[in-house]
């Protein structure tokens, strides 16, 4: 070290020594109960309570007997826990002559949801990929129509779709329903995938083309393996969306194949005397369980995927 520098250090050292005794040192102290923290966590906890309250009430109610519900407070925990409403909701609640609760609908829902999710995501991801990377002439027009289509109330489309499916001879089959779900999932999913693939460096795509990969090879070998986050988002959105669907489920299926939501509707709306709130709540929770589990299990991936795909307009 040169002398010049050494001198500087020495001189500065003297100044500092005096201050060192009194002045603050090290990390700025952070009180756990600072005003900021109290405000921050207080607010968060309050809001969290608000968001959790309905779930709590549903759960508590589903464990009570009807007399307790009629007399008691909806927020009070059950005095006497009974699982009967759950059993009834799952296995014995009646709609018309069918008294097997939601149980049958569960597997129907699975049978509907799985192929619908798969097909709709495949279609949308290929669309998004074609739009983002292969921009052929006029592609954007179709995309705009698709986006505007996201605003069309489903009900309006029931008739045209009935006609289209009838003409295709698919009405009433599982594949008809899969197509319907693919159609209505297409706008948002395509938007997600398109944005995501547009954010993949274009050079990668070019490199693959120079390497002689065609449309499908690039899709399967290059794009798909990189699109995991956005696939997670798409799967979550579709699983919940399709699982929760009532309208198409009821119109495009038969009693044997009614999804859970239709049976939920039947249980909740088949009022026999008084409303059995406890059974309704149990049925509601049971129906919502799959999407809820999906969310609780993959919330973190969802946020990451959203960040990757949705935000870039």
């Amino acid at each position, binding site marked *: 070290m040169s002398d010049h520098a050494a001198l500087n250090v020495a001189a500065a050292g003297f100044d500092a020594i005096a201050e060192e005794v009194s002045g603050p040192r090290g990390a700025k102290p952070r009180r756990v109960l600072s005003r900021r923290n109290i405000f921050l966590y207080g607010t968060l906890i309050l809001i969290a309570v608000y968001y959790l309250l309905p779930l709590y009430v549903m759960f508590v109610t589903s464990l009570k007997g009807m007399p307790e519900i009629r007399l008691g407070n909806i927020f009070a925990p059950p005095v006497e826990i009974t699982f009967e409403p759950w059993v009834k909701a799952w296995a014995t609640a009646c709609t018309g*002559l069918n008294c097997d609760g939601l149980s049958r609908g569960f597997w129907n829902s699975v049978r509907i949801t799985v192929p619908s999710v798969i097909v709709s995501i495949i279609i949308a991801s290929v669309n998004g990929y074609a739009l983002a990377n292969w921009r052929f002439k006029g592609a954007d027009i179709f995309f705009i129509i698709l986006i505007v289509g996201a605003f069309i109330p489903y009900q309006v489309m029931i008739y045209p779709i009935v*006609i289209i499916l009838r003409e295709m001879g698919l009405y*009433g089959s599982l594949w008809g329903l899969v197509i319907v779900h693919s159609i209505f999932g297409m706008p948002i999913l395509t938007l997600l995938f398109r944005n995501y693939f547009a954010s993949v460096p274009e050079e990668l795509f070019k490199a693959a083309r120079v390497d002689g990969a065609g449309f499908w090879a690039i899709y399967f070998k290059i794009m798909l393996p990189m699109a995991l986050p956005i696939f997670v988002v798409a799967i979550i959105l579709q699983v919940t969306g399709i699982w929760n669907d009532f309208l198409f489920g009821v119109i*495009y299926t038969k009693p044997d194949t009614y999804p859970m939501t239709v049976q939920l509707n039947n249980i909740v709306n088949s009022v026999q005397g008084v409303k059995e709130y406890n059974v309704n709540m149990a049925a509601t929770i049971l129906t919502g369980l799959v999407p809820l589990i999906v969310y609780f299990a993959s919330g973190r991936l969802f946020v990451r995927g959203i960040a990757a795909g949705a935000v870039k307009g």
Partner: protein
Amino acid sequence: TDLEVTHWWTSGGEAAAVSEFAKAFNATGNKWVDGAIAGGGNTARPVMISRITGGDPMAATQFNHGRQAEELVEAGLMRDLTDLATKEKWAEIVRPKSLLDGCTLDGKIYCAPINIHSWQWLWLSNKAFEEAGVPVPKNWDEFVAAAPALEKAGKIPLAIGGQPWQNSGAFNVLIPAIAGKDVFLKVYQDKDAEVAAGPEIAKVFKAADDARKMAAKSNVQDWNQATNLVITGQAGGQIMGDWAQGEFQVAGQVAGEDYTCLPGLGVNELISTDGDAFYFPKLDDPEKTKAQEVLASTMLNPKTQVAFNLKKGSVPVRADVDLTAANDCMKKGLDILAKGNVIPAVNQLNTEDTNNQLNDLFVEFFKTPSMTPEDAQKRYADIIAAAE
């Protein structure tokens, strides 16, 4: 053979009645696949229509007969039951004749009427009046007069569910009761807007105004929840069709003892002949087509008719059955029917479109205290004027 039958009968009494059909049909060696859709006709009908037009029809489906299924029949989607009807002589056994007329288009029969329903009933809770310390009313006016006492006792004088059809239904019951059969026919059959705007109907609106005041506190949606209020004595009465009787029955109540029924609101003892009917969409499968016939004839079978209608609270469509098991109220109805004091059903006179407009109007009227009867009447007359 399995036949899928769709309907929207999911309340306690209704479900019990349907099971009679199913039992009878299953006894023929076929199988009834129940396709109940809860939430009432408005939820179920789009499903039925979509499936029929979509080319994946069920084997049989409930419709209110009348004009609801007309276009489906015209489009050739429904099965012609004329052969069966001739063979089983429906024309002779079904009464009143208007029921079969509702199923007939161009001389062909397309549906099987299964019951006679009438709307014009006031159901009263004896317990409620007892607790309020007033005698059980004998007619509408007494009922209105008793309302303050009921209210004082902490009861809802009149229970009406929030669904639109219940509100317009109550009004349509008030018309023949307050203004008489002629006015009713002028308005709904002849679509006479002048009468609709006239003083007779104004009186009906006055009564409806009373009704909505009495019903101000009823916070339920479904008709059977409203009925339940009467059954439990929380409400004084309810204007509802005879199907309400099924609920009283399921609750183990006895007519005359626990509850009182006043046909025609105790003023004009008239009843309408609404009814339910089953339609049979055309199917490709010949097995099923054959089974459809079995189902139709099962439904009209005398034994099934009795069993079904007793549970449903309605009147059988055939006169040649034994109804000794019928209760007090049903007997009253049968009496009136025998006397011929019948009026056509509103459903048969109006298109669903008009009915729906009436629903909109009356649900608004009943739930909007600030809407004057005069305003409502003006809109009422407009709807009648525009109706086909």
